[in-house]
């Protein structure tokens, strides 16, 4: 899929040359930078910015899930040498978002694979909430942008977002 995807990767490659190792980028910045760069080149294509943002959010989710899966597979192949959270020798970059376990130093981090699975379950009975989480978390959209993309009021987004977060937290802790 040569679109937003490639642009996101190109931006990442540029950052890698510049930033210090282990530095992460946040979804909001990435997605907006991709939009500005793509829009500058082909102004007409993105008359609908929210369409672009939705594609970007979905792409980000796929990228993160795919990478998390690859890493888990690599780790399994390495002969069961499980790097656990308690392992003080684990390099911080190995437990970044997208990896299997959350990083205790980064309280906002979550297990992407578990989140992806829970989100897919949520989509089965509340597609709108799942969509909102995807846009907010993976796409880094603001409440207003999300409202525009989904076609509901910002107040509704806030309500749905709060409930989805509560349910997901519960689901990730094994309670649902």
């Amino acid at each position: 899929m040569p679109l937003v995807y490639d642009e996101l990767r190109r931006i990442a490659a540029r950052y890698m040359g510049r930033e210090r190792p282990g530095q992460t980028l946040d979804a909001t910045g990435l997605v907006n930078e991709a939009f500005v760069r793509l829009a500058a080149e082909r102004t007409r294509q993105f008359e609908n910015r929210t369409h672009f943002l939705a594609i970007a959010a979905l792409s980000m989710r796929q990228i993160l899930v795919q990478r998390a899966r690859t890493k888990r597979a690599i780790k399994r192949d390495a002969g069961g040498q499980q790097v656990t959270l308690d392992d003080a020798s684990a390099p911080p970059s190995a437990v970044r978002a997208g990896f299997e376990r959350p990083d205790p130093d980064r309280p906002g981090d979550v297990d992407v694979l578990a989140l992806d699975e829970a989100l897919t379950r949520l989509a089965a009975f509340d597609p709108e909430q799942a969509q909102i989480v995807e846009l907010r978390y993976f796409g880094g959209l603001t409440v207003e942008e999300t409202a525009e993309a989904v076609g509901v009021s910002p107040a509704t987004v806030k309500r749905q977002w709060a409930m989805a977060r509560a349910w997901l937290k519960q689901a990730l802790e094994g309670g649902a």
Partner: protein
Amino acid sequence: MTPQRWSQIKGVFNGALERPAGERMVWLRAECGTDLTLFEEAEKLLRSHDTLGPFLDRPADVDPEDLALAVPPGAASDDGAAAGAIWHSGDRVGEFEIIRPIGRGGMGVVYLATDRRLHRNVALKSLPVALAGNTELRERLKREARAAATITDPAVATVYSLEEVEGHLLLASEFLDGPTLRTVINEGPMDAATVHAIALQVARGLRAAHEAGVVHRDLKPENIVITPGGAAKIVDFGIAWLEGPGHTHQAKLTRSGAMIGTPAYMAPEQLMGQSVDARTDIYAFGVIVAEMLSGRHPLSVADAAPAARERTPEDDVLTGLLQRIADHCRQTSPARRVRTARELADRLDGMAGVVGAAKPAQRTTRFWWEFHQGAAAVSYVVMLVPAWFARTTIGGVEGRSFFIATTCAAVMASMLRLHLWFTSRQHPTELPWARRRSAAWIRLADILVVVSLVIGAALVAAQSVLDVVLLVLAVGAAVSFMVIEPSTARAAGIEHEAGKAGGAAR
């Protein structure tokens, strides 16, 4: 969790949040009444809500390395066809004998197999095991497969049967040997005539499917196979929704790891999780046509321009027309897209003349049509000479009226023909449009000329030989527009448009 139950919980959850923190539990208790599980579920959610902390508070952090190393979806599925295959050459599965695994889709492995009852080769697609245990999904799959099996169009891979063998659900369909449109696009830029040929077939396939009530939902170059004979075949009708994006039952299917569909061909409404209908396929069609024309996805970054290639002006013209259709299909709002696949097929069909024009062999036949238009225009003007003499012979008001009527009709017919002649010479691609617009008027003018000539001949009566001249002219004009013109148009490859225009004129 059912959607109904969830919205019940949502109601009390939101209601409780509106109350001051101290009164919530009392209110919730009263609100739930005897439904204790509802109370428990809502209470658990509220507790989770109160202890959210920074959970999902900030957008995802991304390690740039993850981004750079990510493999675009779809790329991985092309290689390792046999990975995950549970049957091998020679295995017997129900009435089928496996020849070999031929590919791997998001849902499962596709095998080439022989149907031992009918001795024909089929493509056998194993569907997710999760389906077998879900009655609702299976019923829907049966319905969709049945509907897909009713589609009879050369551009749609025929669905033969849905089988259940040893707990596996298998879909048998036409086996197609050939590269997918994705491979063809990757090989390099395609010429406009080829793009038109493929687009027309796909549009007709969509028309047949949509009229049978089946929407594809995951139309993309990977789902279009090009046979060695150059025919385009859409595959996965009736099952694309299983792995297709935006489907709520995805949950049950992707748990084992199948990736959600590729967003690149998803219409805005599909991405937003809104309702999906035939117009969603039309959006995807537009993206595919644009991609065939340029060699890259319309939303991709323009860094690697496809190799330049020799183009004729006719090629550019056809490219422009196809581009316009693609743009029209890719409108953000479904209401502003090309409305139906039928309309799409008709419009592409209408370009046959331009495709013809792009072929050198058709040059001379177009010439005769143009010659006819020019000659007819000149003849109508020359006709005014005998009409002028007839005016004086008839004399009086009748004479003047006859001459005015004949002149008006002849000038109209002549002008319109010159207009078509000019359009054909200068803007060949606009010709079908111009013909459509003017066909009814030309026909009207022709008939008026003939009628007024016949009336003129009657008025002249036996006063001079002019009546014979006028009658001969009338017959000549009638033969010209009723017999000669359709023949030249047909030979020039623009007859189809005329047929449609004739229909519109009636």
